[in-house]
């Protein structure tokens, strides 16, 4: 009707506007879900006789209010970014991998084990590179195995990855409480320390380690891989319909293996940074739940690698504020877990809203 009379340049403008409007659905609905979960969590706190306003202002202060809390937040965000990618990459192929925790733990363990014989004679950069390589290799093999089982043996990746996660934690405990335990450390069973001279320092001008930079670079690289290469295109087709992808002659098996191995390598790298920049050795502190929060990160980001960065910072901030909330409001440390779980449930409920609002639909459709 009237559209036919509009000159061409306005077409382009209307087109772009339409695209923004349609894609804004993917931002508005998750934000609505977050708002709804905040309201529900407030009711939960009120039912317990706690003041929700106190809670949210403490979360703000503990996570984002000061430069100190920002640094704390970013230190937690960096493993969350990589753990989120571990869920997001296989998700493009239609797989739900939830065992990032195990690959992170084993990656960190592999990094520490690699460093032990090298400390003392090898220059620190060489040691670090070898540590990072072994962490990524172990993580990649670990989640890659999940992909192998999925494609070649027909085993559900959600279950196998979580089982492997428990096995990974047992392997870490087996070694740090046995053969590889540092006898000079009476407190917590750990491997030998990699030593302060090997450890990664903070990025200049901050107290945040380089893992954050690595995570951001990885997000951009994965975004390019998934949206601007034939590999990503093939992966998305496979995620849409495996049979159609096979009928097209796409190498589905290889796509699955490469994607899962890449996902595992990245979360293994998170384990490397936890050891090389934070703990200085491998011990049970590696089992911090980043792998599980990473699932929520990826789902909240709708498996979009670029959206993972802000979402990981957001959830890292809530995590960082946990201690403050615990002390000031006398709430258990699991409060953060309850909030995260609630967000996850509400977020998934909100999936049913897609396509229901006319405002997000393109004019022509």
């Amino acid at each position: 009707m009237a559209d036919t009379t509009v000159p061409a340049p306005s077409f382009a403008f209307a087109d772009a506007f339409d695209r923004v409007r349609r894609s804004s659905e993917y931002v508005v609905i998750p934000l609505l879900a977050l708002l709804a979960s905040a309201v529900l969590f407030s009711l939960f706190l009120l039912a317990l006789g706690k003041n929700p306003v106190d809670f949210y202002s403490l979360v703000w202060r503990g996570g984002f209010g000061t430069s100190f809390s920002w640094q704390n937040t970013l230190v937690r965000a960096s493993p969350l970014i990589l753990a989120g990618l571990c869920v997001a990459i296989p998700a493009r192929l239609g797989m739900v991998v939830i065992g990032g925790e195990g690959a992170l733990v084993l990656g960190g363990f592999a990094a520490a084990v690699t460093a032990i014989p090298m400390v003392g004679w090898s220059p620190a950069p060489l040691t670090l590179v070898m540590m990072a390589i072994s962490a990524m290799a172990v993580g990649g093999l670990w989640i890659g195995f999940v992909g192998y089982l999925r494609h070649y043996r027909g085993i559900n990746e959600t279950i196998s990855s979580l089982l492997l996660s428990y096995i990974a934690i047992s392997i870490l405990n087996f070694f740090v409480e046995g053969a590889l335990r540092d006898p000079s450390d009476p407190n917590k069973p750990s491997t030998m320390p990699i030593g302060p001279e090997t450890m990664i320092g903070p990025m200049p001008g901050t107290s945040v380690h380089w893992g954050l930079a690595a995570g951001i670079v990885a997000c951009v690289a994965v975004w390019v891989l998934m949206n601007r290469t034939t590999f990503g295109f093939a992966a998305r087709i496979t995620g849409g319909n495996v049979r159609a992808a096979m009928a097209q002659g796409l190498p589905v098996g290889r796509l699955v293996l490469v994607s899962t191995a890449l996902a595992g390598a990245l979360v293994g790298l998170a384990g490397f940074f936890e050891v090389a920049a934070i703990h200085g050795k491998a011990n049970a502190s590696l089992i911090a739940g980043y792998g599980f929060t990473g699932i929520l990160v990826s789902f909240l980001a709708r498996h979009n690698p670029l959206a993972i960065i802000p979402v990981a910072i957001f959830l890292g901030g809530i995590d960082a504020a946990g201690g403050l909330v615990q002390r000031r409001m006398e709430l258990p440390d699991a409060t953060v877990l309850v909030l995260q779980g609630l967000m996850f449930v509400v977020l998934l409920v909100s999936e049913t809203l897609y396509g229901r609002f006319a405002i997000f639909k393109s004019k022509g459709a």
Partner: protein
Amino acid sequence: MDDVGLSTVLLAMLAGAIRVSTPFLFVALGECLTEKSGRINLGLEGTLVFGAMAAYAVSYETGSPWLGVFVAGLTGVCFGALHGAICKLKGVNDIAIGIALMLFGTGLAFFFGKGYIQPVAPRLEGVQLGSWSTDPSVQKALEVNPLFLIGIALAVVMWWAFRNTRLGLVVRTTGDSAPAALALGINVDLVRFLATAAGGFLAGVGGAFLSLYYPGSWTEGLSSGQGLMAVALVIFARWNPLACFGAALLFGAAGALGPALQSIGISRGYHFFNAAPYLMTLVIMILSISPKRSLRGAPGELSITK
């Protein structure tokens, strides 16, 4: 290892299999019912943990462990009903919801359970089935919990009901083909909702066993994956309640291997044996699933086997 050591280990494993298998059995039967109706609930891990906490708390506050078991079941119904209600919505993935409820349930259990880690609650009493023997270790091995016996009875009843009752047919039809069920005038969503809620009840009871009988206290590390292993167990058991019982015993024995070896002084590699049930689950899945053919007995509507 001499003969005495071996028989001690075998006896300890038998005892362990009976003890450890009960939560597996309950979760597996619950999951079996849910999956027969065509839905998968991965959130039972969270239900199990929350059930364990609720049972322990109620037992401590009221002094009645059986009330604790019942309340644990009710909390399981709530989680199952939540899962069932959310899955009914269009465009929602049942596996993802399961993961979310697993994290949510575990978080809630840790939140409310903080105060119950220290106190000692009254536990469930065992039934002596080994009084015919003079050997105290045999007697100890055959001290079974009533829940174990209830679980066996339930497995038999479910097996019979799936085959011989109208209700069983309704559940199976719903799980095999939603359009066919619809054509028969069955309310598919309602059947699945009820099956998930009932499955949640059983998982909650399984959790109560963990905190009130064996290991018999509430800690945050109480369940590590039993709820999830039970899902794999149901696949292994080919959705047959009787086979679920056998598989639960097998899983129980695997879980009892580490403590059994510890009982004769082999404590090296404790963590390795800790990993045995997970490893066994994985190996069993690899051996029993083939990508080339569909699984016998698998409900046709199940997303996990499609």
